[in-house]
Each structure stands twice: as C-alpha cells, then as structure tokens.
C-alpha cells in the first residue's frame, strides 16, 4: 500500500507551482458556485488533504465516462486531481489483473473502511440473479453491496449509474437498475450525463476534500451547482427561441443562421446540466453550438423519450380518438366559459357607475371625519 502523501506533496512533485495551484482552486471554486472568499479554504483543504482512497467499479457501461474523465484536455485540474487521488482499484486502468487486482481492492477496503469513496460507473443487472454481468466470478450486485458497505459516500458517474441509462431503456433485457435502487444507506451523488462533464466529477471530489461533506444536491441527487439550471436557460441560442426563430431542418437557412433547434428535437428545455456554460473540450464547444439538438442525456429515461429529433411539444404516444374528443370537449367548455365571462362583463358595463368629483368630495369628507 502506498504511503499517505498529501495532494499538495503530489502536485509539487509533479512540478505544479503554487500560483498554478491557486489558479486551479479559483476555477474549481467558481465552477462549484461557491463565493470567491472560499478560494483560500479550498486551497488549504486540497493542499493538506491526504490523497483519498478511491475504489472505482465498472458495471454495465461502455467506458465512455472513464474516457471523458481521463482524456479531458490536459493539464487541467480534472487531470491533476484525478491523478492525485489514490485510485486503488479501477479494473480498466490498473496494471494488476486477476486475484492480484481483487487483493488490491480488498486491502484498500480494509485499510480505509468507512472512509474511501466509491465511484460507480454503469448500471447493475438484477434479472436472473444478476448473471448478465459478473467480475471475478461474482455478480455486480454482490460486488456493489460489499464495497458500498465500507464507503463514506458513493458517486454514481454517468447516466447508467445515476438513472439506469441505456441498459435500463425499454425493454431492459437485463433488469438493469441504477445504484440508488440498491444502495439505500449511503449518501449517493449522481453525476449524470452520457458522458458527464469532467469538471463536474472533480468539482464533487474537491468539494468533498474541502468540506468533508457532499455538495448540495438537486431533487435527482445531482450537484445543484452544475445541474441547477437547464441547458435552455443558459443556451446562447435562447434569444432565437424567444423570437420564435427555429431551424426546421439541418440544412435550411435557419440552421445556417444558428437559430434555435427546438423544432429539431432539442431537449435543452427539460435537461439540467452545465454543458451550455462549462462546455466541452476545454470550453471549445457543446452539442448545440456544433449544430445538433441536445439529447437530454443527463436526465432519467432519456433513451425512451420518443426520438431525438422529435420536438418536445409533440406527443410521444399516438393521439387517439379519446384525446381528440377531450380536446373538442375542452375547447367547447372553454368557449362556453369565455362566452359566459363576456356576458358578465357586458352586464357589468351596462351597470357602470360613473365616479364623479362630487362623489369624491362627499366621501373625502367622510373619510376625513
């Protein structure tokens, strides 16, 4: 087992100057939507923090999330922090294999029991006793339950771990479930996205190291600092939406002029994520900026939303006879109410009482007496 070096030691060994380090702390602090006065505290905490032990379990996933994290533009804080944690088990990255790899996991679990962070990537199959995904002869369900028991907190990375993702999509042949369906007694942070933005996971780690607790979460268990606002609300194409200027196809004038992609199926209005502000690849771009509608990948059930290129305002199910009849009845009811309202107003107009100066004078005196 490696000696407990601090993150500050690590960074210095890697030739990172203090100025650079403080700059990175400022970036993280602002990304986490913390006040600037917190920068020194973040810096102090990060510098002193022992390299936290992290166990990273991969289940039903495509490794896209790990690619997103490890291949983010370098050298950034994401990379630095990610390289500076004590990643004691990651079956894709580690050199060890077989029983040696499992032994590393067991040692870390024993040494840091109750303190290590568990990162989970991928959904967990439960159908047919979980046989659809196994590792070292054990089902994912068993491994997750065992490792989670000694974890301080669980970070569910990616939409599969957070909400089930693609394996969970209809008809869900493996009975896949998200982490939160199986683990009920630990704090779970959902870092959703297919894949998630790298700075989000490092932000969560930095927050955990600084304050010793998990950041404020939204109603779906996602860090509110990153998932608090919708893509739509922060989208640079929003003014076109407000003006009713929409691209109708991918090669029309609207698309060329950079108008809103709502009618091409953009899920920005219902998707909460930081893509429109943080962007991807070091702030280069994000899907909408590249001309493609948002797929809504950080929301639950995004794969079953009825087609990526279908506008949100269209229904996903065929509109049957009943819906038509209901619409007709509703319209007729509305018209009747409207007519009744108009009659009422007209009657009130007929009984209109003219306020005169004489009257005001009289009541003015009454009011004063």
């Amino acid at each position, binding site marked *: 087992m490696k000696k407990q070096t601090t993150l500050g030691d690590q960074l210095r060994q890697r030739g990172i100057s203090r100025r650079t380090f403080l700059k990175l702390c400022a970036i993280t602090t602002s990304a986490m939507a913390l006040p600037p006065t917190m920068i020194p505290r973040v810096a102090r905490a990060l510098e002193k923090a022992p390299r936290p032990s992290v166990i990273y379990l991969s289940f039903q996933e495509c490794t896209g999330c790990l690619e997103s994290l490890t291949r983010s533009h370098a050298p950034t804080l994401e990379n630095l922090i990610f390289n500076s944690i004590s990643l004691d088990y990651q079956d894709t990255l580690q050199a060890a294999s077989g029983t040696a790899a499992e032994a590393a996991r067991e040692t870390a679990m024993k040494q840091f029991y109750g303190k290590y962070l568990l990162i989970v990537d991928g959904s967990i199959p439960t159908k047919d006793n979980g046989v659809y995904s196994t590792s070292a002869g054990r089902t994912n369900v068993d491994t997750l339950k065992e490792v989670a028991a000694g974890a301080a907190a669980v970070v569910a990375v990616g939409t599969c771990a957070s909400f089930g993702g693609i394996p969970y999509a209809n008809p869900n042949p493996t009975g896949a479930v998200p982490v939160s369906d199986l683990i009920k007694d630990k704090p779970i942070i959902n870092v959703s996205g297919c894949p998630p933005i790298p700075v989000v996971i490092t932000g969560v780690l930095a927050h955990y190291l600084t304050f010793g607790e998990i950041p404020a979460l939204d109603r779906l268990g996602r860090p509110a600092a990153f998932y608090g606002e919708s893509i739509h609300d922060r989208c640079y194409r929003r003014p076109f939406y407000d003006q009713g200027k929409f691209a109708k196809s991918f090669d029309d004038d609207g698309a060329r002029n950079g108008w809103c992609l709502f009618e091409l199926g953009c899920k920005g209005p219902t998707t909460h994520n930081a893509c429109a502000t943080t962007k991807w690849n070091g702030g280069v771009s994000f899907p909408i900026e590249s001309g493609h509608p948002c797929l809504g990948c950080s929301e639950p059930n995004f794969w079953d939303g009825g087609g990526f290129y279908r506008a949100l305002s269209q229904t996903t199910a065929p509109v049957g006879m009943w819906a038509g009849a209901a619409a007709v009845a509703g319209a007729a009811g509305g018209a009747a109410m409207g007519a009744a309202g108009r009659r009422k*107003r007209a009657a009130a107009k007929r009984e209109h009482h003219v306020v005169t100066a004489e009257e005001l004078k009289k009541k*003015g005196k009454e009011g004063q007496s």
Partner: protein
Amino acid sequence: MSDTTLKNGVNALVEQIDSRVASFFNSCVHCGMCADACLFYTETGDPKYTPIHKLEPMRRVWKRNFTFWGKLAAMVGLSKPITDEELKEWEPLVYDSCTLCARCPMVGPVGNDIAYMISKERAGMVAAGHAPPGLKGATVRAVEIGSPMGATWKTVQAQIRHTEEDTGLKIPVDQQGADYMAIMSGMETVNFPEYLGSLARIFKQAGVSWTLCSDAVEATNSGIQIGSPDIAAELVQRIVDGAEKLGVKYVISPECGHAYMAIRWSGPNLIGRPYKFKVIHILELLDQLREEGRLRTEGMEDERVTFHDPCQLVRRGGVLEQPRRLLKMVASNYVDMPDPGVWNWCCGGGGGVSANERADALRIKVFSRKKAQLDAVGGVDKLVTSCSNCRIVMEDAVDAYNLNFKIFGMAETIAAHLPSDTKTAESGESSS
C-alpha cells in the same frame, strides 16, 4: 349607503377583468418572486406588501365570477362574496404601498403585469368609495380647478410673466399651427418654474416652433392615479381638445412619469380613438435635437452626477438612453447607480402615493432603497431626474435622511449649459 357603493365597486371590478387580467390570474404560479422586486417589501420585510397579495380582492372577484370552480363554490355556498370591510382593509395596500412602478412584472416567470392589474383594481376601490382622502382631494381639484395642485391658468400666467422677465424671451401662448404644444405637471407650475424657462431657452436656440395652450396646461392625470377611467378620460380629453384645436403636430409630455404614461399610452384607449397628433417626451425631443445638431452646449461639470430613471419612462416608455446621452454632453463625471435603466428602483412616491399624506411615513421609510443605490456608488454631488414628482419626493427624503446632494431636472441641467449668446437673446421676439 355602503351596500350600493360595495355593489358599484364589485361591478367595477367585474367590468375591469379583461382577458389580460383573467389570464394573468390564471397563470400566476405563486412563486412569490414579485415580493423581492417591490421596495415596499424589501424595505419593510412585511409579507403583506408582496405585490400579488395586493390583488387579493380582485382575484376573489375573478375566481367567483369567471372560473368554473369559483362559480360552483359560490353556487353551493362554499365561498363568501367580498365585503366592504375587506375592501377597506386592502385600501392602504392598493394605494399607499404601490407606486405602479411596474418593477414586479419584470421578474415574474410568467410575465404577469401586476401594475396593470393594480390600476384596474383601483377602479373597483374608488367606485366602492375606498380611496385615500388625499388622493380624492387632488382628483377633485384636478376636475374642478384644472390641476391637482390647485394651480389655475392665472397661476400659470404669473409664471409666464416671471419667466419672460428672467429670460427675456416671449412664451408663446395659443399659437395656432405651432409644431409642438408643451404641457406641464402641476408640480412644475407650482414648485419648479425653471422648467418653463429652460424650455423657452432651449427651443429658442434650437429654433423649435412651440406653444402653450391656455385650455390645456395640466399634464398630471389624477384620474389614472385614483383609478377612475371616467375621470382619467375627461382629463386626457382636455389636452386632446386643446392640441387638436391649435392643430399642433406634437404634444410634449413634461418631466413627469405618470403624465407621460397617461397621455402617451393610456390616453387613446381612455377616449376610445387615436389622436390627431403625436406625443413625445421632452427627453426624446431634446435627444432628437441633439442628434440633429440643433442642441449645442458649452462647458462640462466635473461634479459626480447620476441619473434617477423615472419608472414610467424606462419600464413603460422605453426612454432609456436619451437621458444618459444628454447628461454626457454636460457632465464629465457621470456614474450610473446599480440597477440602472429598466431595473431602477422607484423613488417611493409615484402612482399617486405622494398625493396621499397617509402614506408619508411609509414613503420616507422605503426611500432607504434609493439611499442604498446611492451609497453603492459612494454618494454623488448631484442627482438629475426627469420627473418633477420623483424630484419633490426625493427632495423630501433627502431632508429626512440628512443626505448631502442636490436634485435637478434634466431640461434645466441642459439649459444651464446653453452657449451664452443664446442665453441673453433680445426680449420681445417670438420664438415660433
């Protein structure tokens, strides 16, 4: 007595609930965001000042008369009709703690125009006899004497004489066919005579053909403030008759927020037809003259100057950049307060609040919001505004808070910098 007045009031509310009001009530999501936009709430912390709460009587009338569930509840006796006591209880909320500044519609997520609704609710309140005595008095004077401040044409004539002596310029009166007809708020006639003199000097330099109208000088519309559409229409009609009789092309709204809103936006709806002339605010005209090169100034002030945006000009009128362009002609040290332009905070005395003595203490209290804005820029030497009502309200508050700066109108600030050759033009010459 109160039975008939209550019936009149409820009838007026039903009459005022148009499709806009109905859809606003329908779409209210009860988010409460309007509270933080209202200076009466932010400065007192009292939730009763939440803007939408001020509309409760009207909301109940809407629900009972215009919604399915409200009608059903009324039919089976589950909801009680509004009472005279409730209207009385709401009177101070509707008149004393709302300046119709329209800052709350700016923040609401569904765009409900609460200020529009309050002005409609006032129609019901005044018909039911529940309007503040001070505002009633002002309205009576506006109808009977011709000005809420009690200024008659004789008062104006005296001011014209003084101004002609001071400036050596003839003030044109009842000039048939002049391009512009100027009107004044009662406040300008009584408290700020420098406005008329400034107009005369600026128009002389710029060669503007203008006139006053002896039948229609008063711009303040107390009918709008008290909420009576009948009286408001009568007061607008006086100006329309005067302007159309003289055949002017434009009527110049003076440095007054609600007068501008009344004559420019509400007027044609109140009298039920379009005007035969256009309405332009004095700031718009001055800026237009500046752009055409007809308004020239000399000398720059190096005092620290800021501008208070009158609510009705920025949020209702779109007169935003004009005052800043004009001030930068004459002030080298111009600074904007935080929340400038459309987000500016009200002086606390608009919408008839300053005519309502009962609201004086509250009005002074909520000025702390303006004070905070001024403190944020580290204080100023001079505050310019373009509404004489804002000006008098702020002068009052500056005394109460022991602040140390002077307040000026825009026209006089510009007029003070006219090149000296036009300042002392020979007397007796007509400027039209």
